């Protein structure tokens, strides 16, 4: 077994342990805190008998360990419970809302990589000049501004004042959504060969994705710059200068690749921020995703739905981090061949 595969298996096993911990944590928090979920779900007009029936149906009358055991058994069968808020299985709700959120997050992640890294590289190459100073100030502003502030400001300027982008939603009301295959409107409209829907969905995606990406772009540019500046001090760069290689080649080839390793590592943390900030951006832009659903179920104290949503988000985060680690291993041969370092 190659070391890479062994590392992968190791990481997957550790992730399962952590996921079990997450479910336990959410469960304890949900059950310890006062308030009767069955009563809240049914509203003040329900009779005590109805509340009692619901309590029994969801095992809410049992001690917490029993409730947790029942829950784990259901999850193992792929059942996340029923949402008291939407009156549907939580799994069905998540399946409906997750693709919109993932589309937003992938678009934002692409922007972070495609904007943040080049800005950092250029900032390092032209360090201590005007562009570098502007880039650094921009990065600090990017990191220091919450995603919802980016959301409302971008919306105010580009949607309300200049009317360049739509104010909210995933698609114009006049267009039918593309036939669902992946649930990503951008990909589905390509698969359906529908150019008009593709352009409209990209048009709707641009502002929320940018709002979501801003903090990550700032963070990534800052880190890339620091990492590149560090690499520039290494002897092999001096040697490349001595050989008379062109500056662009030194910057983009020799300095870039080693500098990329810490940047990629931190990208895993950026993904956590994206998953959290999606809650804010979706609420600003009326984006019908999992996060907006999450806010609704939190406000309605819908326990199964909250635990289910958090579990899915934690799982997405763990998967993303494993993917980032594999990417780091591909970029950095020292980690690839050392292997087994979880």
């Amino acid at each position, binding site marked *: 077994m190659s070391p890479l595969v062994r590392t992968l298996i190791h990481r997957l096993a550790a*992730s399962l*342990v*952590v*996921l079990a*911990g*997450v479910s336990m*944590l*959410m469960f304890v*928090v*949900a059950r310890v*805190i006062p*308030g009767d979920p069955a009563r809240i779900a049914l509203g003040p007009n329900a009779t005590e008998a109805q509340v009692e029936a619901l309590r029994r149906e969801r095992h809410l009358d049992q001690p917490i360990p029993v409730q947790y055991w029942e829950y784990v058994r259901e999850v193992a069968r792929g059942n996340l419970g029923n949402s008291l808020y939407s009156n549907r299985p939580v799994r069905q709700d998540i399946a409906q809302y997750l693709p919109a959120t993932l589309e937003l997050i992938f678009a934002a992640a692409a922007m972070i990589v495609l904007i943040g890294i080049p800005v950092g590289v250029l900032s390092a190459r032209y360090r201590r000049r005007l562009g570098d100073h502007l880039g*650094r100030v921009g990065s*600090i*502003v990017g*990191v*220091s*501004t*919450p*995603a*919802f*502030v980016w959301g*409302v*400001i971008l*919306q*105010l300027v580009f949607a*309300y*004042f200049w009317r360049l982008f739509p104010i909210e939603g995933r698609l114009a009301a006049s267009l039918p959504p593309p036939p669902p295959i992946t649930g990503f409107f951008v990909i589905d409209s390509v698969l359906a060969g529908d150019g008009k829907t593709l352009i409209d969905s990209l048009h709707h995606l641009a502002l929320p994705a940018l709002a979501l990406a801003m903090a990550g772009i700032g963070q990534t540019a800052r880190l890339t710059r620091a990492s590149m500046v560090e690499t520039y001090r290494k002897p092999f760069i001096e040697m490349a200068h001595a050989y008379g290689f062109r500056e662009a080649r030194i910057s983009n080839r020799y300095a870039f690749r080693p500098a990329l390793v810490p940047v990629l590592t931190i990208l895993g943390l950026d993904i*956590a*921020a994206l*998953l*959290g*900030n999606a*809650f*804010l951006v979706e*609420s*600003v832009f009326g984006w019908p995703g999992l996060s907006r659903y*999450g*806010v609704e*179920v*939190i*406000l309605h*104290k819908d*326990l199964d739905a*909250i635990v289910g*949503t*958090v579990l899915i*988000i*934690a799982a997405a*985060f*763990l998967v993303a981090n494993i993917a980032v680690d594999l990417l780091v291993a591909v970029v950095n041969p020292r980690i690839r061949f050392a292997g087994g370092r979880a």
Partner: protein
Amino acid sequence: MTWFADSPGWRAFRRDTMAMTGLTLVALVVLAALFADWIAPYPSHAGPIGDFGAMGAPPGGRFLLGTDTIGRDLLTRLIYAYRLSLEMAIVVLAIATPIGVVVGLLAGYLGPAWSYGLMRLTDVFLSIPPLVLAMSITGFLEPSAIHGMIAITAMWWPWYARLTYNLTRAERQEGYVVAAEIVGASLPHILFREILPNCMPSILTKMTVDVGFVILIASSMSFLGLGAQAPTPDLGSMVADGAKYMPDAWWLTVFPAIAILIVVMGFNLLGDGLREAADVAR
């Protein structure tokens, strides 16, 4: 004070424009929050009642930053919102830091069983995106500033646990720790008198930056309606309320947004400056 003014760290800090900008912003915000009752033009507007004759006034004139839809002075409310934000950040860090530091010290110093158990527990908390964890905890409680603080504290301590764990692991092989062990120093003595003082610079720097980030997370939660409730002036809920009146009453959104940027950026720049100054001093 002369030793301080002449120290290499302070000299580096003073030359660093960004760090000095951060210090200035932080000083302004802290002074405004401390002396809110004297500085705010209309202190009574921090409550539910405003000046009904001046509803929705644009910036300028009697109201420097304009008024909201029920005639409350925006500048006054922002100053009081700073007070609430700083209080929240201080309370959260005052509780989360000691918990995290103790967990980190124990996990880093004691045997592998302890470090495995404690750090896996930390991983569980760190594997949920911070905002999601804090929101779901508030979700089970009634939304309020106090519950927001509890939720943020619950998600914040693991970062200090991890930081202290890494620092402790590096320190425990050092000669002074081994010497303390040989002379039979007690566990608390080794942890808190020997190892902890050497971890403090990193912990304090992180705390400075974190004041800004706690305010950022708290405002994000109140933006979603999961934090302080009306009529308490709060940075996040002011942006949310203002967004309902876009684009006409743009000042209700733009000024609270800038207020958040100022305080988070201030602590960020200050923390970065302190870190670099500490490196120079060493």
